[in-house]
């Protein structure tokens, strides 16, 4: 399930080629899915698969900081929610034809709203990350959680945008004449976004920047002894991850045509972490599998019993306690992820 964070050394070119062919094949198969499923009478599954893809983006973004940099952020849903709200709020202002704060006109254009969501989430991650990263270990966990809760309450208090009840979009964003209400179209957009984000991440984790992140995860004191200040690298990773979560949130807003403070709820942050761990920390495709697993498991359990969380909870405890090494044991090998300071 989980694989080593980074394969040592260079893989031979033949392997690399084979890997690329397999990837391309997987992509084609996934792209064919929304056309195959209806033939099997499983039209409804397309929506579920889209949710998996969108959550996979959020989980992959969390994996950059959690898996590659070893930063246990428990507030990742905040950036996901911010991304969703940017789309929702811009749409609301477009619909009411009142500029935001009298300055920024609203929009229903996908190509404006989604990049705006990504940028605003990144800015939120920049500010909150700059503060949170002044701490480490267990304080960092608590602080990221607390700041996410702060944003949760902020959106709850925004009565103008529905407060507790959230904000309904009458239509999804307009994208080049595509109909995002159509399940297959939305699915393909999400798949494209996921593929692009994974491509970006795959470059980042192999780059010089990625090498520094990996060093920070494995042994921060070693990296400092090399003359590298970890803080700016952690912060940059935090921002890139926040932007990814914002992208996921913006897509989810388009899919469900609804945003609410629940998207920033701390349990959502917990779910993102579970996805990363289930799929295998620090591997590129792990979070994709993890997201598919968790969403699928929730779907199946919820079909069996209303009280599925009662069973998911202990299952999670068991996975952590007994699936050692395969999971976060990979991370904590040395001074790893917020490893207890004892």
């Amino acid at each position: 399930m989980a694989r080593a964070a980074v394969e040592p050394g260079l893989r031979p070119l033949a392997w690399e080629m084979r890997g690329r062919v397999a990837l391309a094949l997987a992509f084609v198969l996934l792209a064919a899915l929304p056309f195959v499923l209806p033939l099997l009478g499983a039209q409804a599954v397309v929506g579920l698969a889209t949710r998996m893809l969108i959550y996979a983006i959020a989980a992959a973004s969390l994996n950059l900081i959690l898996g590659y940099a070893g930063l246990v952020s428990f507030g990742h849903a905040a950036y996901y929610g911010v991304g969703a709200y940017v789309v929702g709020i811009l749409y609301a202002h477009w619909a009411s034809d009142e500029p935001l704060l009298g300055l920024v006109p609203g929009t229903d254009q996908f190509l404006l709203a989604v990049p705006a969501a990504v940028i605003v989430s990144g800015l939120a991650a920049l500010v909150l990350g700059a503060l949170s990263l002044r701490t480490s270990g267990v304080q960092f966990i608590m602080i990221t959680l607390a700041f996410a809760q702060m944003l949760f309450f902020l959106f709850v208090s925004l009565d103008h945008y529905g407060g507790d009840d959230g904000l309904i979009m009458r239509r999804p964003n307009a994208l080049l004449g595509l109909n995002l209400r159509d399940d297959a179209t939305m699915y393909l957009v999400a798949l494209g976004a996921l593929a692009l984000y994974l491509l970006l991440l795959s470059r980042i984790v192999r780059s010089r920047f990625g090498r520094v992140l990996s060093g920070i995860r494995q042994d921060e004191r070693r990296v400092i002894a090399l003359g590298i200040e970890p803080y700016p690298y952690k912060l940059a990773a935090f921002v890139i991850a926040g932007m990814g979560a914002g992208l996921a949130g913006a897509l989810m807003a388009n899919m469900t045509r609804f945003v609410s403070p629940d998207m920033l709820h701390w349990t959502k942050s917990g779910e993102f972490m579970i996805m990363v761990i289930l799929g295998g920390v620090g591997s590129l495709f792990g979070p994709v599998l993890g997201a598919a697993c968790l969403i699928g498991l929730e779907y199946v359990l919820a079909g069996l019993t209303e009280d599925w969380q009662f069973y998911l909870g202990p299952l999670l405890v068991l996975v952590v306690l007994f699936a050692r090494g395969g999971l976060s044991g990979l991370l904590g090998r040395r001074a790893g992820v917020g490893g207890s300071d004892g």
Partner: protein
Amino acid sequence: MAEPVLRIEGLVKRFGGLLATNELSLDVGPGEIHALIGPNGAGKSTAIAQIAGELPSDSGRILFEGRDLAGLSGAARARLGLGRTFQVPRLLEDDTALDNVALAIQARQGHSFRFWADARRDAGLRGPAMAALERAALADRAETRVADLSHGEHKQLELAVALALGPRMLLLDEPMAGLGATESRQMTAILQGLKGQVAMLLVEHDMDAVFALADRVTVLVYGRAIATGLPEEIRADPEVRAAYLTEGDA
């Protein structure tokens, strides 16, 4: 004597009521190997940590090439050319030996805010990193994961990583610790080869290595320097013999 590369004056570190270093003063000249010896708990590692900027000092000054290091982070000190090795090797265990040295080369070349190109295929990193491994007699282990290296190879790699930074001074925290006789001799030979090129502050328990390498020796007991001098002077010093024989583990 020429202007020292490193000069420390009146260095103090308290842990609660305990003085880990107590008014410690010493200097290291250009190309000199200055050994810091003393029984366990004498404050040698604390002194290294203070110089490297990992532990803040309660008082005292640290001058590196005439520059006061107060307020500089550990990373900033490393960038000035103050390299170090750790007593228990701190290496990136999941990565290869080459990766470890390459990260040092990368750090030396400036910032690492490059997000796209594959660092492992970067000739500008691989070339110098391979060269550094060759100097440390580790070239054949380049693609081996650090976790699979022997303890002696860990120690060699530590040194290779420190050297890859192109330091003007090395803080060596027990480079011989845990090495067998052959490995110790090999490490001594490597350090001998560097003598004169880079100044070193050598903390070491292996007295054969100390007396083979050191130009000067300072003896630390309970955080205080009780003697500084040429190796033969230290060897003959009755106070040193007493301290070592009573506290002794050397």
